[in-house]
């Protein structure tokens, strides 16, 4: 099966994530879309890992480790990110990014 398929799939997922970020106003949903983007990347990484393993590279597993680290980092990021969102919500009772424009120009 061509890796191209996975590339296209991942890119599609990635861009759906991007669209989500662009189209939504809810900070949490936006964040979820970012997670979607990360997952698209993970998927592609794993596909490449398989591809290089098939090509005979012994260190192809490092790509999977990379994915593992991405997950780890994503988890940390979620922790911090949700903390921030909660903090914002506590202060302004909204997670709508459109009303956040005290800082401009």
């Amino acid at each position, binding site marked *: 099966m061509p890796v191209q398929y996975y590339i296209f799939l991942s890119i599609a997922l990635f861009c759906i994530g991007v669209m989500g*970020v662009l189209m939504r106003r809810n900070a949490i949903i*936006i964040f979820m879309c970012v997670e979607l983007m*990360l997952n698209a990347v993970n998927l592609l990484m794993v596909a490449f890992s398989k591809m290089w393993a098939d090509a005979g590279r012994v260190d192809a597993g490092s790509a999977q480790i990379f994915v593992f680290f991405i997950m780890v980092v994503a988890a*940390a990021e979620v922790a911090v990110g949700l903390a*921030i969102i909660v903090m914002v919500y506590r*202060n302004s009772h909204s997670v709508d990014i459109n009303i956040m424009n005290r800082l401009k120009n």
Partner: protein
Amino acid sequence: MNALIFTALSGVVMMFAGLFVRNKQHIKFIAIAALLITFGANLAELSTIAAGSRTVYGMITISNFSILFNAVAFGATLLFFLLSGSAFEKVGEHVSDYFALVFFILSGITLASSFSSLLMLFLAIEIISIPQYILAGSDKKNPKSNEASLKYFLMGSFSTGILLMGITLIYGATGTFNINELGLGEGEVSPLALCGIILLAFALSFKVSAAPFHFWTPDVYDGSPTVFTSFMATVVKAGGFIAFIRIFHIAFAGGVISEHWQLLLSVITAVTLIIGNFTAVFQQSVKRMLAYSSIAQAGFMLLAVIALNDLATKGIILYAAAYSVATIGIFAVLIKLKDYTFDGFNGLARTQPLLAVTTTIFLFSLAGIPLTAGFFAKYFVLAAAVQQGNLLWLVIVAVLCAAISVYYYFRVIIAMYFKQGEPQTAEITGGFKFLLVLTAAIVIILGVFPGLLLQLI
């Protein structure tokens, strides 16, 4: 390696310092002491790797260059602690935690200067970014700070996605994460690799706030507590650049591929210079002006990224040092003022002549006027770009933008010297004055004898 270990340890120490030390003053001193030790440990390593470099598991490579950059970053942070350390207390209760976060960022920066795997690059950038999201929002009651934090976080994680997509595509093209083995400069250009490089360039442009990925910068710098803005706009940004220049110069240099991304980055640089300088002109707040100025200065540093030569690497260190020191100095003065607008500086030369003079020196340095460190910094990046050969148009754009930059830097000078006013300042201690003069002296000394720093590179 020492740098990484000691910064991480210092961070842990600071975490616990909050539990055991009640006096906030003391926390600051502990932080300074920890930083001094780190600084020394970093330099101590210089002797052990005097010839060549040391690689640890193919993940990080410690060289003279990285140690020197770390030294610059630590030195700048030290100045930052000395000048603005007491302002930490005004942000919130978790003084020790702030210091810890700063140390964690520093360990991220040491990684950024020494990574040799794309994985480490990713981790470095995340370690630098995550504490920043927090520091930006550390003034929790302040809606501006909240807003800055959330904006930074959302956009930062978005750019992380792009970074990772770039890394993945590069991996797809090469099968390795080791930047020394990528070998992209050789042979035909693979679309996967090129795509990856471009995405990587976008993500890193975001981190160093290059246009059109700069939008977070003014808002975040403006909204964050000023003391952290000072750190974010200087040391952290320098860290971003060192990562940028490292990956592009080591992994992507040579062959047809560099022409591709050089073109792209030239466009980004030009847009950055123009947007940064133009927008800075019309600001009312000095703090926000400095945010735009940091974008503009980023444009200059990008010249070094594009130029693939020895001058560029030297230039980036000198630039990082000069820019950081001057900006930290200005922020230190800014923190002491009640009013961050230009009018807040009116008449400062009469009430606080020393502050005015040192600020002037810092501004001169930022504007690149000779006999300040900023001049030689600009000189190096311009020289690097000129040597590159086909970037002359960009160099001309850059110098014209530098002329524009005089416009907003000198607005501060005009306010301080030529306008009437009674600026409100916080209490200015003798120690602060001394440190300020010391900082200004560093700027001048590096400007008169840049050789002192250059001989190390």
